[in-house]
């Protein structure tokens, strides 16, 4: 029998500390929908998604109700659409975008990810057409998220794709400038993209995955911060790390339970639990506040990278024992506009892009949800992507860039997206020109650490 203290602790985590399941993401393979006729392919895609994911939302609501734990988002990830487009004679990727949007609305999910291309070592049929359609696709749809993988430790970095993505990010922001440039908030550029990531905007269903799986992403920065606030006053950093581990274990157990329940009720295999600390703009649900609880005056102060490294490692160590299968991005996220503490630190000037870049070397993803001046040239965006990808490539980890060029705005102003995407100040970018470096194109060869065989 569970004791009273444990029961009240769980309830307090949910009621007061924003503990929730961030997402239950159903990964659906669209490989069996490939057809040379794009209209037929779209028909098959719509049918497959609306049949396979028909019960996703009702079942998640039922689990939410029964277990008493909120499931914030229900999402779908699909096979990178560029793979379907490659086979089509008529390359009109926007048709796929509109089909995915319609399917997402029919099944009632919050997001659908997989409007993606994997071009780490070059462009295959359909890749370029898909990438070039991203700005239009994201401006004409509401639920679609897009990602492009431009490199990996095994393949190096495709600098032609990096150069192209700088322009695409900018165009996406321009086409959605009347709506706070929100298109760019749904587009992420990856190095070492995971194939089983349940989190947006980067979720897609990898080609090595089963036909359909359930992946779960947990949340819980508020719970970790509250545990530190209550119990860490006299602890040294070893003790702090242990406390984070124990808390991460509990958070992840919840994710494992929900994943198992969803998987059995939907009759779909359980994929992975993503051991994540995913913040929201809500007060008390911030990764930056955890770092501050550990002992920094503000996130961004010297010591931030070390504290984040310890936090990230402790989250994984605690979580890995709590779940039978882990994967995805697994680690602490540092999306600036989605984290109340990061927003405050960026506003006060304590946190700059260069510090965030250093932080990405030791945490889960990369430069995430950062508003940059609208007049930032595409080649500077490309160079930001290249820097981030290099960190990922050399350290054999996932890195990503999701920056939002605030068209018509500059440093000192703000962009507000609402909901989970939050809001935040426009951050200063180093504008010394990397134009020649980016225009060279070609491939940064795979690093020596790729030769492991």
């Amino acid at each position: 029998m569970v004791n009273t203290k444990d029961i009240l602790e769980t309830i307090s985590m949910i009621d007061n500390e924003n503990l929730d399941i961030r997402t239950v993401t159903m990964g659906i393979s669209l490989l069996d929908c490939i057809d040379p006729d794009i209209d037929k392919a779209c028909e098959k895609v719509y049918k497959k998604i609306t049949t396979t994911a028909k019960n996703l939302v009702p079942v998640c609501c039922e689990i939410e109700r029964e277990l008493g734990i909120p499931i914030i988002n229900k999402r779908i990830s699909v096979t990178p659409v560029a793979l379907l487009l490659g086979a089509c004679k008529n390359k009109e990727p926007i048709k796929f975008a509109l089909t995915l949007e319609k399917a997402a609305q029919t099944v009632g999910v919050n997001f659908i990810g997989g409007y993606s291309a994997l071009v780490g070592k070059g462009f295959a049929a359909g890749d370029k057409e898909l990438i070039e359609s991203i700005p239009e696709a994201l401006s004409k749809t509401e639920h679609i998220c897009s990602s492009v993988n431009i490199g990996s430790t095994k393949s190096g970095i495709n600098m032609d794709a990096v150069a192209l993505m700088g322009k695409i990010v900018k165009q996406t922001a321009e086409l959605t400038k009347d709506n706070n440039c929100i298109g760019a908030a749904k587009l992420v550029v990856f190095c070492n993209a995971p194939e089983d990531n349940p989190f947006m905007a980067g979720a897609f269903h990898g080609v090595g995955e089963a036909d359909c799986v359930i992946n779960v992403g947990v949340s819980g920065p508020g719970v970790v911060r509250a545990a530190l606030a209550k119990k860490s006053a006299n602890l040294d950093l070893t003790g702090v790390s242990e406390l984070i581990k124990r808390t991460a274990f509990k958070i992840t157990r919840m994710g494992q339970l929900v994943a198992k329940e969803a998987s059995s009720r939907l009759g779909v295999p359980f994929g992975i639990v993503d051991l994540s600390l995913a913040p929201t703009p809500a007060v008390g649900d911030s990764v930056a506040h955890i770092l501050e609880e550990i002992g920094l005056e503000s996130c961004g102060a010297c010591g931030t990278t070390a504290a984040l490294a310890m936090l990230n490692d402790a989250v994984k160590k605690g979580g890995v024992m709590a779940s039978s299968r882990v994967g995805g991005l697994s680690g602490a996220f540092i999306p600036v506009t989605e984290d109340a503490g990061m927003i405050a630190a960026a506003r006060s000037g304590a946190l700059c892009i260069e510090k965030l870049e250093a932080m990405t070397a030791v945490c889960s993803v990369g430069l995430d949800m950062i508003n940059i001046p609208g007049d930032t040239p595409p080649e500077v965006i490309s160079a930001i992507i290249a820097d981030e990808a290099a960190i990922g490539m050399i350290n054999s980890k996932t890195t990503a860039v999701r920056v939002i060029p605030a068209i018509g705005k500059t440093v000192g102003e703000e962009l507000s997206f609402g909901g989970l995407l939050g809001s935040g100040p426009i951050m200063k970018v180093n504008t010394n020109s990397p134009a020649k470096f980016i225009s060279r194109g070609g491939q940064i060869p795979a690093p020596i650490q790729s030769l492991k065989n």
Partner: protein
Amino acid sequence: MKTVITVVGKDTVGILAKVSGKCAEYNVNIIDVTQSILQGMFCMIMIGDVDKLTSSFGDFALDLEKFGDTIDMKIHVMHEAIFNSMHRI
């Protein structure tokens, strides 16, 4: 299947009777009850057997939680699995 019902709020007369009366309406058998005063707040935890529930679990939980609002108590109705999963290896 067992459910954990927690009732938290200002201590008044008849809370246990009211909540268990509501459980009886749904044919929920109370197997265990513990109650205490924590930092001046009344706090009761009931373990109920919901195998013979007369409605869906969701409806029962929602109704009881709404009932909590009418008697100024915060009531949570949750499946036992979540506590076992979080606090047991």
